[in-house]
């Protein structure tokens, strides 16, 4: 494989559905963590709500819109159920409760008694056919792209167009939110809850709103991931996915509007480029080794980022310095 192909394949992942779905999921996390300072370590639990909403709708023969409503409704309920008891408490409680809950949800979905609803460990398949996700696809069959490697099938193109459209709409919504007085209160809470309280802001309500909205955005991302994959199974919704989304948020710049987008594209480009590069060396590298090495390199990359550009790619240095009073 030529180095140009390695580059093209990495770019394909970055600007394709992978990049878009991570950007969307990270946008939800960015609202919670980047703007409000809520350490949600169970974001994957919200993605799972969206994915299973679609899967259950498909299994029952309901429409795609019912599936979406189901997933987002479940995410709102999850947000309220987690937020109401914990958002009154110190920040650490939220992290512990969210990471545990996401894990519990995955194990419950995976458990045999859940089989009639979630399909247990085998999950639910055949989503795209029964929900008709690809039915409105107006791209004719064929390959789209440049050269021999930077190519998308018509289905891939449809998924990525839908996903990036969602990213655009949601990002513009978040942009309007964070520039409003509502967003100003979130930023105040991120820095000092007591100051916001002393100025008459009902801090718990604002935190709950941010948490629920961020979780719903996560559910939307989860729903798209399920639709694109055509199947849902519990093995996918593990804590490392949450950590990958944190990487995306921090890489792009926490608390910036376009940070999650830049972060997701960069994340997937680097990850896939390293993968391709390892397979393109003059000696053989096994897949397991390549997987481990790319994660190790990601870790080194993040450390370097924290040392030399802690505000992320888009973050403001001045604002970062301001936080270290």
């Amino acid at each position, binding site marked *: 494989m030529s180095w140009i192909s390695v580059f093209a394949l990495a770019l394909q992942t970055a600007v394709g559905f992978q990049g878009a779905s991570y950007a969307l999921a990270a946008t939800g996390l960015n609202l919670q963590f980047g703007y409000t300072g809520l350490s949600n370590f169970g974001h994957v639990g919200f993605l799972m709500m969206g994915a299973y909403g679609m899967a259950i709708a498909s299994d029952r023969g309901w429409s795609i819109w019912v599936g979406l409503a189901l997933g987002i409704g479940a995410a709102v309920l999850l947000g309220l159920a987690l937020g109401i008891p914990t958002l009154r408490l110190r920040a650490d409680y939220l992290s512990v409760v969210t990471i545990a809950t996401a894990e519990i949800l995955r194990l419950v979905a995976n458990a045999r008694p859940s089989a009639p609803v979630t399909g247990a460990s085998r999950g639910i398949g055949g989503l795209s056919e029964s929900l008709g996700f690809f039915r409105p696809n107006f791209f004719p069959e064929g390959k789209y792209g440049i050269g021999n490697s930077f190519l998308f099938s018509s289905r891939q193109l449809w998924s990525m167009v839908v996903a990036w459209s969602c990213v655009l709409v949601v990002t513009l*919504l978040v942009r*309007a*939110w964070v520039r*409003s*007085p*509502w*967003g*100003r*209160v979130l*930023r*105040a809470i*991120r*820095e*000092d809850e*007591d*100051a*916001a*309280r*002393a*100025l*008459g*802001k*009902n*801090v718990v309500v604002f935190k709950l*709103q941010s948490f629920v*909205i961020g979780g719903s955005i996560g559910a939307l991302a989860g729903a798209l991931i399920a639709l694109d994959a055509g199947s849902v199974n519990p093995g996918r919704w593990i804590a490392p996915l949450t950590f990958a989304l944190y990487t995306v948020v921090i890489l792009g710049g926490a608390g910036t509007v376009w940070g999650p987008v830049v972060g997701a594209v960069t994340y997937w480009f680097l990850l896939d480029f390293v993968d391709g590069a390892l397979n393109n060396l003059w000696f053989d590298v096994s897949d397991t080794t390549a997987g481990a090495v790319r994660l190790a390199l990601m870790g080194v990359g993040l450390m370097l980022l924290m040392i030399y550009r802690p505000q992320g790619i888009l973050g403001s240095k*001045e*604002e970062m*310095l*301001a*936080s270290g*009073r």
Partner: protein
Amino acid sequence: MADDPLASVEPRAGVPKPDPILVVDGVQRRYGGLVAVDVDHLEVQRGVITSLIGPNGAGKTTFFNLLCGFDKPDAGRWTFRGDHVEGTSPHVLARKGMVRTFQLTKTLGRMTVLDNMLLAGRDQRGESAVRGLVRGTWKGQEAELEAKAHDLLVRFKLDAKAGDYAAGLSGGQRKLLEMARALMTDPALVMLDEPMAGVNPALTQSLLGHVTALRDEGMSVLFVEHDMDVIMTISDWVVCMAEGRVIAEGRPADIAGNAEVIEAYLGIDHGGSVSGEIR
């Protein structure tokens, strides 16, 4: 003051006032066996500067936190502007007109000075998550708040810093910003927790000027302070706490001569330096 509303009030702990804005009854706060605050009765007069003094550990700040809702008492009731407010959350109290500042200033460093001010504006339509999305619903109010914030920043000599991150302000400027920000909430009672702590003498003078200006504009001020000179200069009424209790109340001159206060506060007779005339 020419028409001192407290002129006929007897200098004694727990004395009733002609027009109290805050009335406290039997407030207690215990930490295990330690009684940090135990105030039988205290009235704070409307429209004057009342200072709360006492030695370290007297329970001033704890009492202060209780009144603002930042801490919960084990017993007691109190009214603010005639309403019972025990057990009320701090943000509700702030909306009722009781605004506080903090001993360690809580200016928001990652926000601009102007944003710090705008944050404090009350009843903002754009603070609803739904209306926040529709700029048209809050643009007008935002412009009004900006004008109001600008006036206050000019008064506190911070207007040149409006666009800077608050983290770039000096310690004294942060105190000023916190006070200006508190005024954005249109308070009836301003509670200042050691506003002069760690501030240089020149700035102390300017802060004192701002505090008296609040009173002259009709607000009530209750503040905790250590510096006796400061207290004697600007207070209309002084409340002295020791070991959680109110041990004396009175005009500055009454307090300066009060043997109990001198004993509790200074441990020894401090002679002439604690007097109303000092400056």
